[in-house]
């Protein structure tokens, strides 16, 4: 089995597309960080003065408008007063954590890359005819398909690792000097925002979309043996899936469609699912059931069908 994965890994990195995707990721990160550094706006005045001005402005607005209804402005005033009282500086310019947030956004791109690999890793063997050479070997079809699936996920994880490592390095080189603390008001109490915890939470919740997209692309790629169809359909569903679920939301079966659950990040920071009454454990159960269905169809089709390529 290890040999088979080693083989898939070797074939993967001998293809230009694999390197191109890595290159694109690196270029995006470097270009984005460069632009941010170049256009960075920094407050040159002392932060105490700025906070005092802000309190005045907000107080005026509150006085003019219907007061108590505007809780956002009220919170802003509370935070600014808290900063002055406890001498806690706000962040000035882009911080490392802000930039890491960009790294989290890039998970979408990495998912797309993993989808491309997953969609073509089986179908390309059929389109080039090499499947005949691959399947007439003492390795069962199940093992071969498993090696391909595992390789796809290893590639995805590798790209995620590259993404976060590079974003982190760039963030430290360019934005490490920008210190400061983000504050938020929770139940009337001012407290420090745990940026890193939020980043971790959103990142791990992105796994839902990552895993389901890859499995779906893998399914279409191995059943229809066409990478274009697999990539196209996966992308279409990830863009349009939300809308489809919206349209169907008045029916009760909508919550049993996996597309309604792929975006687990809606639960981040105590968020709610867009369909009422749907909880995270329910979402994860639905995803797990669909993942299993996708895998069963992929394996069944790959193992049972005749090879006529």
């Amino acid at each position, binding site marked *: 089995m290890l040999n088979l994965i080693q083989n898939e890994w070797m074939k993967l990195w*001998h293809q*230009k597309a694999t390197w191109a995707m890595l290159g694109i990721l690196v270029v995006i990160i470097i270009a984005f960080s460069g632009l941010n550094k170049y256009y960075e706006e920094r407050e040159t005045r002392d932060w105490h003065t700025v906070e005092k001005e802000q309190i005045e402005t907000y107080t005026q607005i509150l006085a003019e408008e219907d007061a108590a209804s505007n809780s956002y402005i009220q919170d802003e005033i509370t935070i600014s007063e808290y900063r002055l009282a406890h001498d806690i500086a706000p962040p000035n310019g882009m911080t490392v954590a802000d930039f890491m947030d960009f790294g989290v956004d890039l998970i979408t791109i990495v998912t797309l890359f993993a989808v491309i690999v997953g969609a073509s890793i089986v179908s390309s063997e059929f389109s080039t005819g090499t499947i005949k050479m691959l*399947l007439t070997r*003492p*390795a069962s079809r199940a093992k071969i398909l498993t090696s391909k699936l595992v390789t796809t996920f290893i590639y995805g994880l590798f790209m995620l690792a590259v993404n976060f490592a590079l974003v982190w390095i760039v963030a430290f080189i360019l934005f490490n000097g920008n210190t400061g603390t983000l504050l938020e008001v929770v139940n009337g109490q001012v407290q420090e925002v745990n940026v890193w915890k939020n980043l971790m939470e959103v990142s791990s919740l992105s796994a839902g979309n990552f895993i389901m997209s890859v499995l779906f692309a893998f399914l279409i790629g191995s059943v229809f043996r066409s990478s274009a169809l697999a990539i196209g359909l996966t992308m279409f569903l990830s863009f349009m899936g939300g809308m489809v679920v919206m349209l169907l939301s008045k029916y009760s079966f909508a919550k049993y469609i996996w597309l309604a659950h792929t975006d687990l990040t809606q639960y981040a920071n105590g968020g709610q699912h867009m369909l009422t009454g749907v909880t995270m454990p329910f979402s994860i159960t639905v995803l797990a059931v669909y993942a299993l269905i996708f895998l069963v169809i992929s394996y069944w089709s790959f193992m049972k069908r005749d090879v006529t390529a």
Partner: protein
Amino acid sequence: MAQQPIVQLRNLTKVIRGKKLIDSLNLDLYPGQITGFLGPNGAGKTTTIRMMTGLMHPTEGEVLIEGQSLQGHYEEAISKVGVIVENPEMYKYMSGYKNLLHFARMHRQVSKERIDEVVRQVGLEKRIHEKVSTYSLGMRQRLGLAQALLHRPKFLILDEPTNGLDPAGIREFRTYLRKIAAEEGVSVFVSSHLLSEIELMCDRIAIIQNGQLIDIREMHNEAETVYYVEAEPLAKVQEVAQQLQIEYIVQAKGLELQIPKEQVPQLVNELVAQQVNIFAIQPQQKTLEEQFLEMTGGGQIAESHTK
């Protein structure tokens, strides 16, 4: 034949969408023997070969390799088989060597030394580290042969193996197949549309038509033989032939005589006694092409085999 067959096709049948492509095929293949597989296009050659390599699942019947069913014990059974199905498709973006390494990893016990050995055998050592996309068709065929031989298979299945080889390559290839069949007892199964090629290479041929095996025959012991005699004067030869009650056909400079091998010395003695000047006596076999066309109803073998 007293030997145990390496490969046995038992009642092999394939039905696709109600159409019987292969109909109850029974065939035994023996060690050290090269069997040719002939048939008009669409007769079911490729389907049969795909079932023998596990690419297609038989509707009925089974393929046994050293007594083990390919369907039941796939990994063990297939590890004894070397395969080239149609054109050997390689990973073009990798070097020939990486391709071999890739396939070697899929077998147990194929060492780096073995890879080098096979590369030398097929004569690719100078270009093996270049990308396959730069190879000519002939070089790809050689690489295809190399990957099929890596794990020292006991049974070799070749579909159109000489397609794209130059004449020297074809000859070398033929010699090589003969050698591994004779020395290592490998059983070889070759499908080809080049009848003359099969004729030179094979010990035995199996002919398939419309999914049915219509004939299996040994190549070198034809029951009826024809001898061509070139001699002067021809009239006397005809007389002798009539005396000995031999059927003959008159040709420009000689006669074609239908006699068994044992009768040849008697004929020669008689001719010498009659003071006939003999220039040549040679056995003539019907060419495979003639036999093939005769059996399959003629005219159906196409020039190229593509699919």
